[in-house]
């Protein structure tokens, strides 16, 4: 599991300090106080989200940078911070629709809500985070965990245990519970190398270290194992290429 990497464009020290205080516990934040630095930073590392103060050094550089983000091959979600709810300012920002903004001053909850809102909007998966079904991006799964959003790289999942409408994703360092049924989970992992070996288990094929047919157990990375049911045994053996 990894924290989201957020790019913050903010020129007021008090404001940027406040935001860092509010978010650094849950997220990695990179601060830029000019549009030039922001562009350089965006080019040099990967970000999951950008928080942009509209007015940078008296200019509407926040909007300018938003346009820059949208012109990149893989635009990241972003939202604006502003101290004024004036339409005149936003009329220019309309070019970057759909956009979200947050009026200063704000508290951590409002900030958190805006982050969720903007990610859901960006990936067009409404309510995916708040309802805890997991938000799937091309590279990873975003999960809301105790009011913070974290990303799970699907390949790091050892196996999945399904119980009714909930699935537990086991990774090497943490377990994540999301609200997804077996069929939904299978659908999500369709183009990944996963195989169902039991009514309740899906295993990551790449993580298999040993298949013990006498114990009906698959051994994955150290410390992870899952049982095989008779129903799925043949298919697993066939796929794994073991001749009994």
């Amino acid at each position: 599991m990894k924290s989201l990497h957020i790019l913050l464009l903010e020129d007021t020290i008090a404001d940027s300090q406040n935001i860092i205080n509010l978010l650094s516990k849950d997220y990695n934040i990179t601060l830029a106080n000019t549009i030039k630095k922001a562009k350089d930073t965006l080019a040099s590392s990967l970000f999951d989200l950008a928080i942009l103060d509209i007015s940078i050094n008296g200019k509407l550089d926040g909007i300018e940078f938003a346009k820059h983000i949208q012109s990149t091959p893989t635009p990241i979600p972003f939202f604006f911070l502003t101290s004024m709810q004036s339409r005149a300012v936003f009329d220019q920002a309309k070019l970057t629709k759909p956009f979200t903004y947050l009026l200063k001053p704000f508290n951590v909850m409002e900030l958190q809500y805006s982050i969720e809102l903007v990610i859901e909007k960006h990936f067009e998966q409404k309510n995916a985070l708040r309802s805890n079904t997991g938000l799937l991006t091309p590279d990873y799964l975003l999960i809301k965990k105790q009011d913070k959003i974290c990303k799970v790289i699907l390949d790091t999942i050892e196996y999945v245990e399904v119980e009714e409408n909930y699935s537990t994703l086991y990774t090497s360092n943490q377990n994540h519970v999301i609200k997804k049924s077996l069929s939904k989970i299978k659908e999500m992992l369709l183009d990944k190398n996963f195989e169902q070996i039991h009514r309740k288990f899906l295993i990551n094929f790449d993580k298999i270290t040993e298949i013990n047919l006498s114990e009906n157990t698959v051994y994955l990375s150290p410390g992870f194992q899952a049982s095989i049911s008779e129903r799925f045994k043949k298919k697993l053996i066939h796929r794994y290429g073991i001749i009994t």
Partner: protein
Amino acid sequence: MKINKLKKLLILFLLPCCVFSQKNEDHFALENSIKKVCKGKYTNFHKAHTFFFEKKKDSAFLYSSQALNDFIEESEITDYLNYIHGVNAYEKKFFSIAQKKLKTISSTFPYKYLVDYNLANIALNNNKYEEALHHYNVVINYNKIQSSHTLKRMYHNVGICYLHLKKYPESEKFLLKELSIAQNTKDTLSAIYAKLDLGNLYYQQYKDNKAISYFNKAYTLAKLFSNIEAKQATAKNMAVVEKNRKHYKKSVDYYIEYGKWRDSLWNRDKISELLEKDKQITVAVKDKEIFIQKEIAKKQKGRVQLFAISFIIVFLFLATLLFLYRIKIKQHKLINTQKQQLEKLNTTKNYLLSVISHDLRTSVNLLKNNHKNLSELLNINDTEAAILLNNENTSISESTSQVLDNILNWALQQNDQLLFMPEAHPIEILIDAILFDFKPLAITKNIELVTIHKNSDALVLLDKELFKIAFRNLIDNAIKYTQKGGKISIETSILDKEFILKIKDTGVGMSPTILDVINNYEALTVEKIEKSKGLGIGLQLSKTLITKNNGTFKIVNNPDVGITVFLKFPIQEI
């Protein structure tokens, strides 16, 4: 000499003999017979005889000739047609055609005597006296002529024929017959001419006494009669006779009388000529009048055109005036709207100034004084009092900041400059986020802040920032007016597809006048606010923004203590 005299006289007498065209009894029988035969069956024949009896010679002549082409075989009808054609030809003086046609009529033709009569007249016209007499005799033998007029004419003609042939006794016999008929029918003119004829007859036989007696009779009769030609003829006769008798004086008198009658004749002609002239003049006058009328009409037409043109010009002028007037009205309207807008802006500005001077200035001044006090407290190292004062200052700054935000947002709203971007939001999260800020304040004031969400995940279509401003103000008010140890409960629920948010406090409550203003006006204009002093800018802003977000806003005083704010929003269906 004698011959000359004779000729002179005779010319006068032959004149009436060719007149036959008068309608008389003899033609009634003929007309009836023809109608019986025709009965309108034959178009041309019918037209021919109709025109014939109506004395339309040319038409009768034309149609009779066409009708003759219709009937190839000789019959009763061709006889009639030949008769009609012949008589018409005779009357038009086509004597040879007339003679030819009349001669082709069959001998069994029931009106043979009329045929002979006409042939006789033709012969007479051609000066063939013997032939004429032959036909006249046939007619006399038939003895079928009914009309005394025709008889008289015939006797006259017969007499003339005999006269030409110098058969004087026969001539005398027929002329006397003519005279007797004329006298019987009281035909004075005929009588005069008959007497003249007789006079001539005797004169030619040198029976001068007898002749003169007749001439005298004729002259006397003519004198009493109105016919000028007769007077002239008899006078001239008398003049010739007297001249021959060498009674020159008498002759001259008669000539003078003749001349007089000739002059009167000439006068008559002259008069008719004058009448004709007069007529022409009248016509000319009439023409002139017509011409004048035409001119007048033309002028009137010109006047009408002039009128039309001037009307158009006036109309165009009026239209232009109207157009300009409308432009002016439009400008006026625009100016009026602008004036109203300006007035509104001015009121807004004044209101803002009053808010700034009251709400803002007071708290900033208080802050200023408190800071002075704080410095003094710090100088004397009274830390405890300083901390208390600092806490107070913090809350004053916070409320001042709130007032400032409100003023700004309110001004933006008044100028329609607020960004409004409604989206579906989980409203409870927004509520919790705002309440999160007030928790420390509530704890400081020892106010219990309770939140009850009966339904989670309700989505409401609203602009989240505007809603937050409104809600923040409501909670701020609730905390401000609730005594220490009081309670504020926020309850959300869903009823009939409406999200209901209740904010209930145990504060001081509100005056009925303010409640009336806030509950009863859909839009809180500056004018209305001005009338109800004491209604804070925060509450106005809340109501305006909630309404803008399609919500309803209502405040009631609780039965026991404090107020409850009811907000309702339509639920966004997923």
